[in-house]
């Protein structure tokens, strides 16, 4: 950059400070996010001021009320036409309020709500020193195995901070798919990622594993954020703006005025291509696509299982939402460049997830690889680049989140002396001892496998149909093949549960409180309803499939 242009940048900046207008914020349209973030801040205050005994109840109450209220706000906005006719970009071009955003935000909120129930579950483990315990460490800061940990347990401490942390994460996730400029995108990413890193670290059992998972997640997450940020910088260099609309305009070549400060870089396709690829890499990390997936099994396994469920469902929804918006709003003009690459990513993701899952022996790792394979299936819908592709992805995400949360909730129930019994060999014969739990888990597995009459089939059918119509026929073939591979390990678990002899020292199935029962019940209900009568929800997703530009 020449000295003159630096000067001009400087002086222009100096000039504009005098003219900064008051930002115009549409509070009503942003209310879903504001409610959740406000409740999260309140939660921090609760931690500070409410006596320890009452915190759990206050936090659960606050979280549930906030999520329900936020969802109500979403419904109100959708009913008010913001999902279709009145869709527009709020907060000075930073946040979009449109169909995909509202649909995904609603999905995230509902998924978070049922996840919060599993966070609040306190009946699975036996009481410690007369105190009910949940899945989280008594005191996250105490060193595992130390005296301070034991005294914290004895004192009946609980990490009720998980609720505000989860709310912060939800707040970030709500913004992520709605972000309409790259900076908002980045900030939303950090807002939901940081709490998740923490949440991963606070397991009550196997704490070292949990902390290891959190550190890995944090390191790799930071690495991916760096990619994203660098990509943002390059795109800014290319377009002279971080706004989606303006970048898109430059990509399409409809902008002829060139910012004199960026005269050297603007319109340089190398910047565009490299920047776009790096942003994609950052987002693919979040969705868990191969080769950015390697954190997934370790983190899913180490994190407290309720957090795993929450993360696997809500993060995936938010990340795919952001990916969709980026590809459909910012980069449609670049379709011919990114589609082949995304094809390759989708193929290796589908195959990689399905193949490596075959040899897994831990149920949580198995589900982690399954989530990788599913990320591949969803990518196939994303690549369709048609409105049908968008609605198929929306529908898939909705069905998939509830299956995932339900499946991880069932995992929390199967326990032995060391906590959750996640090794597959321990699940042998579960169907003989606890037919109901095994049957419910079988339903979730069948939904993962995409067997008809479950949401998995309807979703998979929708994305493959959209992909095929979008000209990605070979991708569909690979998708169906990897579905066949994936079916093997899902069915294998069912066979293990129902057709193997139970082990003498096998795990017991804990009887949960109504909270987890609600989570699992909702999971089953959504899975079956979306499987048997998907049309209403497909129509809904269809109506919500147009991005505002």
């Amino acid at each position, binding site marked *: 950059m020449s000295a003159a242009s630096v000067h001009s940048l400087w002086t222009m900046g100096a000039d504009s400070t005098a003219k900064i207008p008051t930002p115009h914020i549409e509070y009503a349209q942003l209310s879903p996010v504001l409610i959740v973030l406000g409740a999260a801040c309140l939660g921090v205050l609760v931690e500070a001021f409410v006596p320890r005994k009452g915190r759990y109840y206050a936090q659960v109450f606050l979280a549930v009320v906030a999520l329900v209220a936020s969802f109500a706000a979403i419904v109100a906005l959708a009913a008010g036409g913001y999902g279709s006719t009145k869709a527009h970009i709020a907060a000075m071009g930073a946040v979009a309020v449109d169909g995909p955003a509202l649909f995904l935000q609603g999905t995230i909120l509902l998924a978070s709500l049922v996840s919060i129930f599993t966070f609040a579950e306190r009946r699975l483990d036996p009481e410690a020193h007369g105190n009910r315990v949940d899945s989280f460490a008594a005191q996250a800061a105490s060193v595992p195995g130390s005296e301070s940990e034991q005294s914290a347990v004895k004192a009946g401490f609980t990490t009720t901070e998980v609720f505000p942390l989860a709310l912060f994460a939800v707040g970030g996730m709500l913004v992520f798919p709605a972000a309409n400029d790259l900076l908002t995108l980045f900030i939303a990413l950090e807002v939901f990622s940081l709490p998740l890193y923490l949440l991963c670290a606070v397991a009550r059992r196997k704490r070292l594993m949990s902390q290891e998972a959190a*550190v*890995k997640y944090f390191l790799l997450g930071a690495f991916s954020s760096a990619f994203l940020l660098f990509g943002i910088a390059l795109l800014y260099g290319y377009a002279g703006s971080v706004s989606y609309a303006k970048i898109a305009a430059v990509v399409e070549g409809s902008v002829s005025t060139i910012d004199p400060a960026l005269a050297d870089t603007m319109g340089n396709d190398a910047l565009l*291509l490299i920047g776009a*690829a790096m942003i994609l*890499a950052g987002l693919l990390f979040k969705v868990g696509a191969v*080769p950015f997936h390697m954190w997934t099994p370790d983190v899913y396994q180490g994190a407290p299982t309720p957090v795993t469920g929450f993360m696997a469902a809500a993060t995936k929804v938010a990340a795919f939402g952001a990916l969709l918006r980026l590809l459909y709003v910012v980069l449609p003009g670049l379709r011919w460049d990114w589609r*082949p690459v995304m094809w390759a990513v989708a193929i290796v993701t589908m195959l990689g997830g399905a*193949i*490596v899952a075959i040899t897994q022996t831990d149920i949580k790792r198995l589900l982690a690889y399954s989530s990788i394979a599913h990320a591949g299936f969803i990518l196939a819908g994303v690549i369709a680049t048609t409105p049908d592709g968008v609605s198929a992805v929306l529908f898939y995400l909705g069905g998939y989140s509830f299956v995932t949360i339900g499946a991880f909730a069932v995992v929390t129930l199967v326990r032995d002396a060391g906590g959750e019994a996640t090794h597959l060999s321990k699940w042998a014969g579960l169907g003989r001892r606890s037919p109901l739990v095994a049957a419910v888990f079988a339903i979730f597995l069948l939904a993962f496998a995409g067997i008809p009459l479950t949401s998995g089939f309807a979703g998979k059918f929708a994305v493959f149909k959209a992909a095929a119509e979008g000209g990605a026929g070979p991708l569909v073939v690979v998708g169906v093949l990897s579905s066949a591979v994936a079916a093997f390990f899902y069915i294998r678990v069912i066979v293990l549960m129902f057709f193997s002899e139970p082990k003498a020292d096998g795990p017991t199935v804990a009887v949960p409180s109504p909270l987890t029962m609600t989570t699992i019940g909702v999971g089953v209900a959504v899975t079956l309803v979306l499987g048997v009568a998907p049309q209403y929800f497909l129509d809904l997703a269809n109506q919500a499939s147009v991005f505002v530009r």
Partner: protein
Amino acid sequence: MENLIALLVAAPLLGAVVLLCGGRRLDRIGHLLGTVLAAASFVIGAVLFVDMLGKGAEERTFTQHLFSWVPVEGFQADVGFQLDQLSMTFVLLISGVGTLIHIYSIGYMEHDERRRRFFGYLNLFVAAMLLLVIADNYLLLYVGWEGVGLASYLLIGFWQHKPSAATAAKKAFLVNRVGDMGLSIAIMLMFTTFGTFAFGSVLPSATDASEGKLTAIGLMLLLAACGKSAQVPLQSWLGDAMEGPTPVSALIHAATMVTAGVYLIVRSGVIFNAAPDAQTAVTVVGAVTLLFGAIVGCAKDDIKKALAGSTMSQIGYMILAAGLGPIGYVFAIMHLVTHGFFKAGLFLGAGSVMHGMNDEVDMRKYGALRKYMPITFATFGLGYLAIIGFPGLSGFFSKDKIIEAAFAKGGTEGWILGGVALLGAAITAFYMTRVMLMTFFGEKRWENDADGNQPHPHESPRSMTIPMIVLAFGSVFAGGIFGVGDRFLKWLEPVTGHAEGDSPVSAMTVTAATMVVLVIGVGIAWAVYGRRPVPAVAPRGSLLTRAARRDLLQDDFNHVVLVRGGEHLTRSLVYVDHTLVDGVVNGTAASVGGLSGRLRKLQNGYARTYAVSMFGGAAIIIAATLLMRAV
């Protein structure tokens, strides 16, 4: 009046339902109820017949549309009936002979504790057979076709405690499935060709279709006819079907069901007329079966099996006539009706003999029965004279016409077919005379049965003799009534059409030749079985005789070619499945599993490795994106 048509089927169907579902309470009146309902069907048929006679030839087709069975866009299946002269002929034959055999069965099955069920099955048969002949479309005909197959299966295996009966029923069912497959394929072909199954739509437009398609349909219909009418190559079940009670053999396996194939071909005459190749196939099948059945009939010592061979041979005549086209259709049906009378009479006579001889069926253990069973002897004798074509009796009129028509086919074909038909007539005379002589003449060769009971031959009860007498009247006079003044020809011609052939020999010559071969056949039989005493143990016989006793090796052929062949085929398929298919499947599974085991090693738990993977991935994505642009 036309609304009565449905009642034809409804009456016996009601009987079947009531008798089969009614339970033991109906044991005492079941047989009467079944008989009354069969008779009701005959009465309705007769009323409709009188009504039909009162109309001109053009108005004699009655129709009744009952309901839409499968009303789907582009696929219209109706339950509707069409009663024309052809159907009417069958209706009267089926319900008439059927009623007589119901009456006969009252006596014959008197001591059987499952008599109610037997009458239920008989009613089911009558209902299905009537449905078959009055259906106005091929799909409904197929329902009746399967219905008679089911009834036949149930009745052949009626004495299911005998393994031979159970096996015979299964055999009949399986062989019939082959033919049924032909009919279903024919119906599908019709649907794809004409878009409908209705006689009223298919037959008039048949000539519009290509000859290839019509030939295919015709051959499939012929396959169906072969199965149901026991024609070569699907003939093997009929002999074994004699395991069923004798009234069943008379009604189903002689007079009515086995003629369904003839009905099918004559009904579809328009299709065959336009497909000469299919027609030739029909004549070949008829001619071959005609000789086949006759030869088998010569060698059997079991009276029912000898008659079964004869049935096969006589139906061969009908199929031959049906294959001749318009010159033969009418005579095929005419022979069918007269055969219905005399063959049913012969079977009932055989049943009567068995009834008096402790259920003995071996003719070598009969002899001299004419004095003990005079009515049976008289009726059986009249049936015998009818079937061999004794001048003036039924068979004389109908068979003679078929032989004439075969010659009238013209050319070498005509000479061959005519010659075969004549030869068949000679053999018929031989084997029927043999049956007659072995049963009613000669010395007593009676033996005690397995329980040591001495046979006390006696005349059968009235319920059995009356139907025999009625059928004997039919055997004597039916041919004359039909033949004199071409009454039957005029009756049926509007439906089937008729053409006079171009015979190289005059009718008188044919009749004379028939008389000559008749005398020769009877003479040889008398020389062998009449002049000399019949040995009680069958002599070893010539190679042909031994083969004929084994039904000309039909079962050996089927066993070697079909059973063994099928076993080899399935075995090799299983082998291919185990090695090739399973090999590919298991190999794929193993290689995917191996790949999985290797790939999971990449997941080594080190964050640095994961970071490298991400870095490499990002680098590849960037490079690929740039490359895409460069390309």
